[in-house]
């Protein structure tokens, strides 16, 4: 029987010719070497989530010395439902964090960003799909994580970037992250979690140059219920795009150790 395969092929060609907007979710991502959707490339968020995950108006930054440079742009929140469901005591911690953000934000100290923050900092990151796992290499602070795509592993120690176990749901990469040390913040506004944090991320390629990113965040000691953020990630389409280096320790030493310098 030849008719069915031919009809199928014609259908596939017609589908491929349609703009993805008409097809809805039918965008068919190209395949990586292992046969799964190809998410590889250099990506970057284009929003103000690193300033504040929630809706925020433009505001002065923590350093008047830098004038308008380093002040906070207005931004629409990326939290589903608008507000992060903090427990009352945790909300107080968040306020204290905000008040002390100039010195206490791990970003000011050039500490590793943790998850989910690494994905929406204003620096690009690269996804490499290899037979040994899926690597996320971040330009900021040379942070990185290798997502284990094999049999899930238990965290052996608490870390900044977590223990990353991944699997595919169709063409969506799901990354289940646990084993955090509870020291990372989510943004410059002092949003935070504890070492009980559990993040489930979903990366879906929606067309050639976009990934849809979602993260479900759960931590019963800080939040009253799980909550979700979502945002697109954009491909760095420059012909010569490559990950550069942002080793920021040197930029944080005066802040961290200045008091111990010989006067």
């Amino acid at each position, binding site marked *: 029987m030849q008719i069915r395969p031919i009809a199928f092929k014609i259908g596939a060609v017609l589908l491929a010719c349609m703009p993805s907007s008409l097809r809805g979710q039918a965008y068919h991502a190209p395949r990586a*070497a292992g046969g799964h959707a190809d998410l590889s490339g250099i990506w970057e968020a284009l929003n103000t989530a690193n300033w504040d995950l929630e809706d925020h108006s433009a505001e002065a930054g923590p350093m008047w010395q830098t004038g308008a440079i380093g002040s906070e742009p207005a931004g629409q929140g990326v939290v589903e439902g608008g507000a992060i469901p903090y427990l009352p005591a945790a909300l107080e911690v968040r306020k204290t964090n905000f008040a002390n953000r100039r010195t206490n934000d791990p970003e000011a100290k050039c500490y*590793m960003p943790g998850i989910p923050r690494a994905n929406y900092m204003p620096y690009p990151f690269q996804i*490499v799909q*290899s037979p040994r796992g899926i*690597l996320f290499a971040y330009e900021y602070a040379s942070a990185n994580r290798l997502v284990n795509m094999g049999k899930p592993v238990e965290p052996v120690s608490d*870390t900044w970037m977590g223990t990353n176990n991944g699997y595919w749901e169709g063409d969506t990469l799901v990354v289940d992250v646990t084993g955090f040390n509870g020291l990372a913040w989510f943004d410059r506004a002092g949003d935070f979690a504890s070492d009980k944090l559990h993040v489930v991320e979903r990366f879906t390629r929606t067309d050639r140059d976009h990934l849809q990113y979602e993260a479900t965040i759960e931590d019963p000691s800080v939040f009253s219920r799980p909550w979700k953020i979502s945002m697109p990630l954009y491909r760095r389409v420059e012909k010569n795009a490559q990950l550069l280096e942002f080793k920021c320790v040197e930029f944080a*030493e005066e802040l961290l150790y200045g008091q111990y310098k010989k006067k």
Partner: protein
Amino acid sequence: MLPGYKGVCIAALCAIAAGMAFAQAKAPRGNWTPPKTAWGDPDLQGVWTSDDSFGVPYERPRRYGNRTLLTDEEYAERAKENELLASSIQAGVTPKAGYWLQHEGVDYQPYNSNWSEFARQTSRQTSLIVDPEDGHFPPLTQQAMMQRAAAIYASRLRLRPESWEDLSIYARCITRGVLGSMLPVMYGNGTDILQSPGLVVIRYEMIHETRIVPIDPPNNPHPHLPASLRTYMGDPRGHWEGNTLVVETTNFIGGRAGIGPNGDGVKYSEDMRLVERFTRTSDRSIQYEVTVFDPKTFTASWAVVFPITEEPGYQIFEYACHEGNYAMSNILSGARAEEAQEKAQPAVK
């Protein structure tokens, strides 16, 4: 694991000290063929370590002359010491060898033997440097010699570190550089290699470095970054020569990191060009060769060779060096406290 001021120096010393365990990968036997990836490239993937060269001297002790390999007698001696080190570390006791022998009687040792790596196979190499043939660094250029002498002189005049800038780039948890990340030290010698079509990724546990190497056809490499753009880990470009991965790296930041283990030692210049060659020689080993071209620092090019090998169960962990760098605050605040004490009670002459 924190690189304490002393610990960092010790780890580097340890790597260059003679009289410790040595190892070398065996050459391929019979009809062994190197594995290929699903897309046809030679497969270098895995977690490898330089532990089998743990303690091999960087420069060759003079007694070996131009000889690159140990005699059977010398080898047996080294294997014995290696065995002592390995069995002590595995048993969780302090070995009477290497670093611990050198520091016997010291009150505060930053490391017990739990932290230490050891070789699985004893090496026959007499040194890591194989070119020039005497196994020594070529002479420094006059400019590099003056800079090094000035730096050593300044550090001798300084009683205590006045600022973080007086500590090594590794003690500051900034980087160990490319060669400094590969050379064997006391611990954390893991190198993780991942591949995907058109890319090889080389990751080092210390200090969570990732080198993403684009693979080009040898006759059509894509250009390096412009000279005005520089990084600590440089700008790598790779190609295959048969089963060998060749990586050429340029665009380094010069004058800050050294060319030795952990990024200590003679500081290299911004003109340095590294040519590394990774060749799979057996199921459990890759031969690693690197040639250093830095005419501003050295009067000739020179080369290092050693195997990186598989260790069953070895994992790459998150090395949050800077995040846990209590040593830096402690060293500097300790120095200031000592100065305050001296000021209050001037030393009796």
